[in-house]
């Protein structure tokens, strides 16, 4: 049993090491892609697939998050006579946490699965070996454009999710539940700072890189056959989902300490 646990641990550590190396190589290749205009066409193609085609699904996610928050929170706030503060609660939750996290989870399902399936199929049909055999680095040709597209577009997609979350929350709060529109926006404006919006958008860069790197890695290392590709897609989604939640927690702690450090200086600057 000890041997089995040891073997499992060594396997896990090896896997982590291989992933860390892959992620590093992908980032380095992405940087080289940025400074080499002849590879921009690969990035544009991925941006269209990853970004443009994800807009509807991310907007729908954002809208439902905002609407659900309004429905759930209204009774508690109305019970205390604070229903006009509903906008603060909805908008700060959407822009700071739920918008970025749920948009990223939706992207992990939509893009992560597709990236892993595409690269996994290329792997089992020897297309990745074919790229290597022609003297081209497959990480640079296949992974870097996808990582770059996710890095650049996830924050934009989060902005779309945020916007639709705000609209959805407003629709339910003001149109359905009859909260005064002016009060709703007034409390929202006083409660939500630019810093809150920025946190959500900055998280998008990290989420984008994490889901792209994990999905590409799983595709590059997937096992033979249809079962291997299917398993790689499942593992990619689960790993992306967990890493999004873990990153969200880590970034929340980091941003909070940054905020607490610099908050006292705000009055000096202002």
């Amino acid at each position, binding site marked *: 049993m000890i041997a089995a646990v040891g073997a499992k641990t060594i396997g896990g550590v090896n896997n982590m090491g291989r992933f860390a190396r892959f992620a590093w190589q992908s980032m380095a290749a992405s940087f080289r892609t940025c400074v080499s205009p002849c590879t921009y066409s690969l990035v544009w193609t991925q941006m269209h697939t990853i970004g443009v085609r994800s807009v509807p699904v991310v907007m729908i996610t954002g809208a439902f998050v905002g609407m659900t928050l309004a429905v759930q929170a209204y009774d508690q706030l109305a019970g205390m006579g604070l229903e006009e503060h509903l906008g603060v609660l909805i908008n700060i939750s959407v822009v700071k946490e739920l918008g970025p996290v749920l948009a990223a989870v939706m992207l992990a399902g939509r893009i992560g699965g597709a990236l892993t399936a595409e690269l996994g199929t*290329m792997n089992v049909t020897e*297309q990745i070996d074919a790229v290597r055999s*022609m*003297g081209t680095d497959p990480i640079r040709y296949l992974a870097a454009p996808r990582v770059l597209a996710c890095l650049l577009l996830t924050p934009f997609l989060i902005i779309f999710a945020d916007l639709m979350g705000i609209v959805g929350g407003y629709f339910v709060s003001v149109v359905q539940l009859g909260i005064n529109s002016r009060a709703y926006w007034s409390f929202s404006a006083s409660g939500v700072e630019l810093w809150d919006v920025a946190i959500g958008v900055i998280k998008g860069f990290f989420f984008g890189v994490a889901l792209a790197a994990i999905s590409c890695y799983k595709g590059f290392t997937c096992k033979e056959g249809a079962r291997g590709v299917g398993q790689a897609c499942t593992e990619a989604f689960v790993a992306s989902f967990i890493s999004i939640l873990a990153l969200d927690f880590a970034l929340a702690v980091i941003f909070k300490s940054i905020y607490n450090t610099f908050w006292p200086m705000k009055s000096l600057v202002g």
Partner: protein
Amino acid sequence: MDERTERKVKQHNEKDGGQGSRNDSVIVLQSVTKRFGANVVLDNISLAIEKGKTTVVIGPSGCGKTVLIKHLIILLRPNSGEIYYKNRRIDNLGESELNKVRTHYGFLFQGGALFDSLNVTENIIFPIRQHCEITDWAQVEDLVKTKLAMVGLDGFQNYYPANLSGGQRKRVALARAIALNPEVILYDEPTTGLDPIHADVINELILKLKRELGVTSVVVTHDMTSAYKVADRIIMLHNGKIIADGDADHIRNHPHPTVQQFIHGQVGEDDLAVLRMSGTVSQAQFLPRDFQ
């Protein structure tokens, strides 16, 4: 194998076999061993691939032929041993250095490995785009036309791999493999999955490329018709070792029972014993009698 046969095999190998001299060799493998876990796939293999010749590697499925050919271009790295390309050791090079070396190779994969998202033209110009700055697209189109004409597929420029037959895919893959005018072409099971006529088209193409481009070729196959037709030299792999090495006649007359069994496509006594033990088909009761 009894002692007498063993002696005969040794004498036969000394008479005509051999591993080629290193001086006129393009690729040299020295004591290469490759393991996957506990499974030793290549066991201390030494081999020299001669310039301008077609070397065919034969052997039963799973004996390590594809692993061997992937070592020649370092798509796989050996656990021990050394690999040289034109007297330069390449198995210890980094990927960026290796990529430069790989431009001297063409590789025809078993399934073609064409990129499904690219059409035939884009597949063929892929290596050109990666390594050359294209300024004159008309010239590139001419080049694609020439390469496709060489494999008899001119006019298929705008087809996607999904719209091609298995044989056509292999020919397009061959056109892509020769796009950078390589010095060495590696063929992994080029005739597998093709009908005899299309398989012979591929054989003729291998001969044509050798004749017209003077390339060094390494062909991995278990198709003996193909092997006899294209080979200057045939090597047989068995249990990770080279058990026969020589020209077609040398292999035909080889006394090693495994070689004879393989080239004549005969089932072994061990396999027959397993079949006998498994009983008759009518005795097999996979499904209940009343299964609908």
